[in-house]
């Protein structure tokens, strides 16, 4: 039995909304809300908050599950990994010790997604080579046809050095770099005042993504994947300016059919 005269606490209001309140206390809270419009308003706002969350995120649960999350596929992948045994052993020890799911708090770790790593590799290459005065590239921009032919052959798809004259950028040249799985092509551009932008492209494990932005210190990168080929445009962290350059490149690589 509860006493209807006991004031309703904030905890009880939450529990009321979340169906955690003992059944015999519900009527007390309902009566309380009629007499306390401020609390009734808070309860209303929490309920509409839940509706907003469902309106925004329920659609995700209704999307078809992406291929990469299919259990069949994940099982095959995890069986091919030798470290699986170590992980299971570690988990078992933790289970025996704690007997609960708490082991995950200690054992779990995850890394940046592989495509973000791809962008970070490109940013590293950008920082390494834009400061080079004498040897920024292996093949000069004046030798464009040879550069494109050579890099296309090594990366395994047709790559053209985008023409960025409209954005005020001249091709300095390019070089071959190690990529995540296969070699990467790297092009450098500069403005008359010496500001440099680079394009890094290689085969990616990600099929197609929207354009994304990464920022590190004073450098920015716009990156995307298109039919299994990744592109990273690095340069200034000024988003609007970088975006103009990235868009110009995107439009041209699209037609080149990466």
């Amino acid at each position, binding site marked *: 039995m509860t006493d209807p005269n006991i004031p309703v606490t904030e905890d009880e209001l939450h529990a009321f909304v*979340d169906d955690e309140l003992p059944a015999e206390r519900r009527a007390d809270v309902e009566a309380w809300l009629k007499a306390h419009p401020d609390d009734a308003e808070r309860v209303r706002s*929490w309920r509409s*908050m*839940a509706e907003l969350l469902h309106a925004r995120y329920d659609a995700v*649960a209704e999307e078809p599950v992406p291929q990469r999350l299919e259990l069949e596929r994940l099982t095959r992948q995890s069986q091919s990994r030798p470290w699986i045994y170590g992980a299971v052993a570690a988990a078992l020890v933790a289970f025996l010790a704690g007997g609960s799911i708490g082991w995950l708090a200690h054992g779990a770790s995850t890394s940046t997604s592989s495509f973000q790593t791809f962008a970070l590799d490109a940013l590293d290459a950008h920082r390494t080579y834009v400061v080079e005065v004498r040897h920024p590239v292996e093949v000069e921009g004046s030798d464009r046809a040879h550069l494109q032919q050579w890099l296309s052959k090594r990366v395994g798809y047709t790559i053209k050095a985008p023409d960025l004259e409209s954005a005020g950028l001249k091709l300095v040249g390019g070089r071959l770099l190690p990529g995540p799985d296969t070699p990467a092509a790297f092009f450098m551009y500069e403005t008359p005042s010496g500001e440099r932008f680079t394009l890094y492209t290689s085969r990616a494990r990600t099929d197609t993504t929207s354009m994304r932005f990464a920022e590190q210190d004073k450098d920015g990168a716009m990156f995307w994947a298109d039919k299994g080929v990744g592109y990273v445009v690095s340069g200034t962290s000024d988003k609007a300016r970088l975006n103009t350059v990235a868009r110009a490149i995107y439009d041209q690589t699209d037609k080149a059919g990466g």
Partner: protein
Amino acid sequence: MNAFRDGVESMIPALRRYARALARDSDIADDLVQDTLVRALRSEKLFLGGDLRSWLYTILTNLNRNRRRSLARKPVFTELYDNNADASGTEAEGRDISRALAHLVEEQRSVLLLVMLEGLSYREVADIQGVPIGTVMSRLARARAHVKAYLDGERPALRAVK
């Protein structure tokens, strides 16, 4: 397929929803779900009954916490266009709530989503976060207060009209 796998599989849509709201980036969210599933499958033999649903939410919550910790000193990745990741079913209200979530600290966001979006009990959330129920309730109360303040502040026009 056995019962364990059927159970895991049936949870994928809800895990994706929770991950999307938690990370607010569709790629990162699916990475989290993928890592969660790999871990779950790997530990199948260790799972001797119990609440599969809570267990999966626990893995995902912990993976996200570790991800954020490891990202703390790495470059910041953001969506270039606000409505890009939110392309499905975007509406003004939806964007508001996801921005409001961005302002919460990790533990509060997780509690709020587990209770309000995923419908877990306080007891289950306490187990997932490894804290007493009282802590769950105070995190939930603070999260709700923050989101309410944010949403109220976001829509001065609506209040002014009334």
